């Protein structure tokens, strides 16, 4: 009986710990002006400048026929991808707090608490993911400008997908942070991960759905097609597009499956390294 009570009390401590660490990450994010400015300026830059600038060119001559590659404007097409970009940047950068905490001693304070390593990591990842989803939501405010009609159902569906994506990417950030000892190193390394991951995810250009597999490999360099198809972010952005503008190049469930499994695998990897560190 006593053991059951002890286990229950330990479970309550773990849950309280997750909440405490989650709250800390969220509070810190509101006080981090740099991150907030980035979260606002990034979508404006991508949607207003890149989106408007490339909007007229979002069509192509393929096999002698001029057509729009996908039945949407470029602004509509990149809108879900800009949400993913904001989540990508914020998630990975949220994980920099692991380095911060290690450098400035806070990690020790948490490590001598009754929280397990799993709880500590879950609290941090959930906190980082929440901040990333909030930054993703900032992009949703530009929906009208991008001619994307939102309904509550669409928003709810997108929020679910954004949360899964944010969880997986924050875990990826922690994996990176576990290998990096300085802030500068993290900045360089995370950019080396973020930008290639984003540019090879069909975020800013689609693989033409009108083309067959063989034609695609003729039109685009084969290596690029392979990289795009192997990039998990491709399927996450595709699922988000499906939810927000009703356009999918792949099976929408594939996106959910890949995001879910990436989240589990990356969190597991982050936990393995966090326990070892």
């Amino acid at each position: 009986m006593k053991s059951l009570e002890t286990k229950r009390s330990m479970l309550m401590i773990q849950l309280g710990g997750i909440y405490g660490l989650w709250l800390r990450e969220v509070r810190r994010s509101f006080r981090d002006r740099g991150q907030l400015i980035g979260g606002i300026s990034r979508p404006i830059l991508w949607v207003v400048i890149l989106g408007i600038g490339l909007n007229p060119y979002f069509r192509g001559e393929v096999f002698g026929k001029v057509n729009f590659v996908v039945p949407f404007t470029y602004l509509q097409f990149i809108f879900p991808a800009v949400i993913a970009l904001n989540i990508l940047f914020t998630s990975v950068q949220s994980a920099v707090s692991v380095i911060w905490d290690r450098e400035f001693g806070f990690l020790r304070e948490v490590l001598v608490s009754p929280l397990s390593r799993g709880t500590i990591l879950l609290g941090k990842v959930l906190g980082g993911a929440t901040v990333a989803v909030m930054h993703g939501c900032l992009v949703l405010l530009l929906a009208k400008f991008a001619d994307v009609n939102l309904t509550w159902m669409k928003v709810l569906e997108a929020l679910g997908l954004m949360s899964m994506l944010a969880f997986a990417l924050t875990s990826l950030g922690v994996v990176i942070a576990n290998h990096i000892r300085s802030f500068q190193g993290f900045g360089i390394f995370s950019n080396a991960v973020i930008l290639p991951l984003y540019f090879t995810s069909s975020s800013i250009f689609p693989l033409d759905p009108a083309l067959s597999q063989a034609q695609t490999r003729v039109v685009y360099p084969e290596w690029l097609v392979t990289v795009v198809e192997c990039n998990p972010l491709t399927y996450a952005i595709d699922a988000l597009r499906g939810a927000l503008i009703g356009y999918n190049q792949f099976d929408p469930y594939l996106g959910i499956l890949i995001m879910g499994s990436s989240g589990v695998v990356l969190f597991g990897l982050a936990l393995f390294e966090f326990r070892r560190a």
Partner: protein
Amino acid sequence: MSNILNSSVAIRLEKVSKRYGRTVALDEVSFEVGEQQMFALLGPNGAGKTTLMHILSTLLRPDAGKAFVAGIDVMKKPLQARQRLGIVFQEPSLDDRLSVHENLDLHGLIFGVPRTLRRQRIEELLALVELTDWTDKIVRTLSSGMKRRLEIARAFIHDSEILLLDEPTVGLDAQTRDRIWHYIHRLQTERKITVMVTTHYIEEVEKCDQVCIIDNGKVLADGAPKVLKKEFGQQLLRIVPKTDEDQIKIVTRYAERLSRIDGTEIILTSDDSFSESFLAENGARIRALSIEVPSLESVFLTLTGRDIRDKEINLREQTKAFGKIGGEHTK
């Protein structure tokens, strides 16, 4: 062997050893700290004090030996052991982007303190360390002394029975150091807890119930300050001779009692009868004379053959200082 020990012993170490590579940080360290005692671990930088603290706080695993806090084996039941401990690290461990209140509240949350109790304790403790007016201030705006006081208060948000303080006053001015010690003594008396403190400031351990002198990872002596002074302390005679010739004569005559020469001052080991006979014999040769009663400084000198502040940092200390960072060696 059982994981639970006699409850009257708050901390117990049994032949604890720890190495960093080829450097021995702790070499079969054993001692006991009784409940509600103020226990000081005294040693120079690199003696192994912080390593010992990290082992007790479950941040490090020893290579050999056992450590118990409140009767709990820290290696076998670390989560339970941590619930009994309040820890103040040598390096600050506050979140400087959160406010004073938020830091304390977060600590309460991660230690499972219910909301009502948390609020009540935060209020009480902030009043105790005189930080009530700073409740909503962001921690990075506080002075070093205030941060230290906040860290001490934080260690009491949960039901800690044992407070581990790793060099709590290092880097602080004398006035702030006094104030910190005032809070530590007050908390110990009011909450009836056991305090284990590491320090290399000898004057800070005089008021402790028990002192353990540690150097190069080994325990050299352990006991009440009075007992240590009686057992290992030396009465010293500080003499300033009138001339250089007098200095030579005294040094030659009392070579076997010579402790050291400090500029023009000769320091001889002494006792009551020697002081009298020395004065009678050499009164005309000396300009000034003072008798230094046995102190912990002299105890340290006797045990290690050097002054606690004399030690230069060498490669061994540098390796251990690396260990002090904590995160890198944390298991």
